[in-house]
Each structure stands twice: as structure tokens, then as C-alpha cells.
């Protein structure tokens, strides 16, 4: 359906990219936190091996999560931007019934 929606597109776009931003901040924050814990343990000489060992697994996992999130945002939003007005493809498009089925 390409009729004008009551929701302004720019607002939607901004919120969507803000969501991506939140993901970056959140996961970036976690990675920063883990590094902070490593540094603290190093400074206090309190079994730094535990911190380093865990971060070797945890940080790559979080980075992969962040990559997947950003990949999806880029893949979906980047595509939608240029194709706003193109006719919907029948395959997986769930267009509304013009007869306005309510149930």
C-alpha cells in the first residue's frame, strides 16, 4: 500500500536509525565495561587471567551480535529508502486487502 500514511516518513527514519544507535551504544557500553573490569583486575593484580580469558570469548560474541544488528538495519533500511514508492512484490509482501478486512 503506497497511500500516504499519517506517520511522517522522516520521523520514522530518525527513530529507526536511533534504534541502531542505541544498539551500538548498548553493546559498545558492554564491551567498554568488560575492558574496564580487565584493567581493574590488572591494576589490583587480582587474577587478571580470569578477566582476559572471559573477554576473549565475550567480546567477539558481542561484536558479532552488533554486526548482525547493524547488517539488518543497513540491509532493510538501506533498501527501503530507495524503494518507497515501488509496487510491492507479491512473494512475501503482506499487503492489506483493499476491502479493509477487519478480521
Amino acid at each position, binding site marked *: *500500500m503506497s497511500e500516504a*500514511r*499519517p*506517520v511522517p516518513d522522516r*520521523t*520514522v527514519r530518525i*527513530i*529507526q536509525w536511533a*534504534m541502531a544507535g542505541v544498539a551500538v551504544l*548498548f*553493546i559498545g557500553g*558492554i564491551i567498554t*565495561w*568488560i575492558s574496564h*573490569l*580487565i584493567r*581493574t*583486575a590488572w591494576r589490583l593484580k*587480582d*587474577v587478571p587471567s*580470569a*578477566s582476559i*580469558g*572471559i*573477554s576473549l570469548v*565475550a567480546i567477539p*560474541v*558481542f561484536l*558479532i*551480535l552488533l554486526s*548482525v*544488528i547493524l*547488517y*539488518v*538495519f543497513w*540491509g*532493510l*533500511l538501506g*533498501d*527501503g*529508502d530507495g*524503494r*518507497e514508492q*515501488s509496487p*510491492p*512484490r*507479491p*512473494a*512475501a*509482501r*503482506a*499487503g*492489506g*486487502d483493499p476491502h479493509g*478486512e*477487519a*478480521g
Partner: protein
Amino acid sequence: MAERTDNLDAPLLAPIERTGPGFYWSVGALSVLVLWGAVAYWSQFSEGLGVTGLHQPVSWGFYVTNFVFFIGISHAGTLISAILRLSKAEWRRPITRMAEVITVMVLFIGAGQILVDLGRPDRMLNVIRYGRYQSPLLWDATSISAYLTASIVYLYLPMIPDIAILRDRLAKRKLLYTVLALGWTGSERQQRVLNRAIAIMAVLVIPIAVSVHTVVSFVFSMTLQPMWHSTIFGPYFVVGAIFSGIAALIVAMIAFRRAYRLQGYLKPIHFRYLGQLLLVMSLLWFYFTFAEYLTGYYGSEPEEMKVFWAKFSGPFWPLFWGMALTNFVIPVLTLARLGRHTVGKVLIASLSVLVGMWLERFIIVVPTLSNPRLPFGEGIYGPTWVEWGEMAGSFALFALFYLLFTKLFPVISIWEIREGRDVGLREVEERLLTYLPETGEPPVATTERGH
């Protein structure tokens, strides 16, 4: 092609479009329980943990039990959704959404249990500022953060095409659905991106989930206490988690099948397969439990035997044998033959398992603490109204979150059902042909599958 099947899946959109009195009654009842929990917690927050039944030596009780129990249930989403998706099991389609929602909601509740258990919740940020990675609690914090992030992503990604349906069909909540649909148009490129991302997440979420319940078990097994310091705990807890997760999923499915009249989508065959999985997990759980207790008993180490007998014939015997009954006897009896009354039998088994797995967590936490090594008196633990209230409130809060989710988003994945109808049959047929020996005739499918 999809438009003409639009009306077929109207029952899936009905709960979002209309709200009946049953919903309001449920929300009301659940809110009362949540309120009880809130009052209980408020009294604890202002007076201290002394309002519970905890004491020296049993300084961990209901809250830690609930923590392990709720985190355990989170394995529902992973098993069903990720593993079945990776093994291309077609019967997963109506189930994945419900499973993934359970995981996300229950992780919040589970993490909340630990916060409730703290003597100084106002200092919870100390874990962030001064965390020590040698402590298993920090492994928990990291692992559960990873799992929560991964589950939210893994829930959200397959929701996007459904949200696009809501965006286009409904008049209400336009902003919410438009924003969350991420501009989904169903184009080739978007489908490719989404399918690839979902596939990556399905693979990633499994080791994260295994690590979560393993590190939860490490909270106990990394101490030196009798019947805690056991190498079996990691796998034991994971098996128990998957076990209780399937049970919780079945209960949720039956509840919403009834409430939203989804009998067309959640058919006896789905419950039959899940019931068989539940049976397998019950046997696996029994195997681990048997190995654990036989090892302790055969070794006869005095400290371990004190705890062993406390469970077997001492003060905890009703809970221990109740656990054996509800986790093994009842599920095996009810699930052995699932031909008739499938849904009923599976419901009984699942409710039984949920009770049994909670008892199992309790039986792990409390008897060991109750029997200290040095000659102190044996600690008797009697939970107070505060702990019961907190538990009731936690279950109710989980149910409330879940219920509210089903009002905003379809509880069965519409596009995956449609995908099953449109391409599922063909794909399965193609796959089947690749398993069978060559016949010399051209296959029914196209040539894209190489031989």
C-alpha cells in the same frame, strides 16, 4: 499470491485487533499477584532480608531457586526455535514465536530474582563498577547479558515481516509498527538479508544459551560444598533447563491455543512431537540425576552423605521424592503413549515437570547449605509470606508481560506459516529427493540443487 491467503490467517491477527473481557480479567488477576509481590518486596527493601526465612547457615533459599528456575526456562526459545530452524523441521513454524517470547520475558524475571536477593540492591551498580571476573556471579552477568541481547535480536528479526503486515493492515499503533517494521517491503534483497541474519543468529544463540545455564551451575559447583562441588553440574543444569523450558512452552501454547482459538494452527501433532521431546528430556534428566546420586552414595564421603541422607530420608524427603515423582514418573507414564488425548496428557506432564524442576532447584540449593561441615545445628529453612509473595509476583509478572506481548504482536509467526504453505512443501520434497538414491528420472524440483 499472498493476498488471497490473507483472510486465512485472520485468527492470528484477531487478538491484536480485538480485546475481549477474558483479557481484562486475566490482567486484573495477574496484577493482583504482582501487587502482592510488590508489597512483599517493599517490606523486604525497607526492613532488610530478615523478613524472609533465610538465616545462617541457609543464606540462600527461594530467590536463588527462582533465579535458577527462571533462567532455566529461557532455554525454551533456543531449543525450539534455533535447533529446529537449523534442522529445517517444518513443524516448528507455529511454535517459534511463542518460544522466543518466553526466552526474552523470562530472562528479565530471572535476572530480577538476583536483584531481589541482594542485601543491598541500592549498590547493584557495584557489580558494574567493581566487578571481579574470578567470581561466577560476573560470569553470570556477562553470559546473561549476551543471551538477553541475542534473544531480543533473535525474537525481533523474524517479527519484522509480521510487523509489516500489522503496519499495513491495522489503523492503530501506526507509528510503532512503522518504526519497527524497518521499511520492510518484502523485496529480494531484504529477504536475503533477513534470512541470512536469522540463520547466523540461530547458530550463535545455541552456544550462548548453553553457556548461560552452565555458568549458573558454576555458582554452585565452583564452591567446595558437599554435593555442590560436582563436575556434572554444567551439563546437568543445561539438560534441566531444556527440560523445564519445553514444559513451559507447552503450557504457554495450550493456554493461548485455548484463549485465542488457535486450534487450527497448534494441532495435536505439534504437541505430540513436543511431548516426545519432553519424554526424552525426562529420561535424560533421570540419567543425570541417577549418576549424580549414585556417585555420591557409592563414594560415601561423610560430608556428602550427610546431605544425601537429608534429601533421601531426612527433612527434605517429601521434596526429593516429590521431585522424582513429578520429573520422572508422571511424565514417563503420561507421555509414553501419545496417540489419544495428546493435548491433555502433554499438559499434565508439563505442569508436573514445572513443579518438579522447581523442586529440583530447591533440592540442590537448600540441603547443602542446611548441613554445614562443622558441627553447627542443622539449619531448617521456612520461607515466609514475603518469599511466597515474591514468587507469585514473579510468575504473574512473567505472564503479564507475555500477555501484553500477544496484544501487540502476533503470537504465531504469520509469514512463516505462509512460507510453509507456499514453499515448504516444495522444499521438503526437493530435500527428500536428495536423500534417496538416483532413479535416472529428472527430479520434480528445478535444477538449482546439484546432485
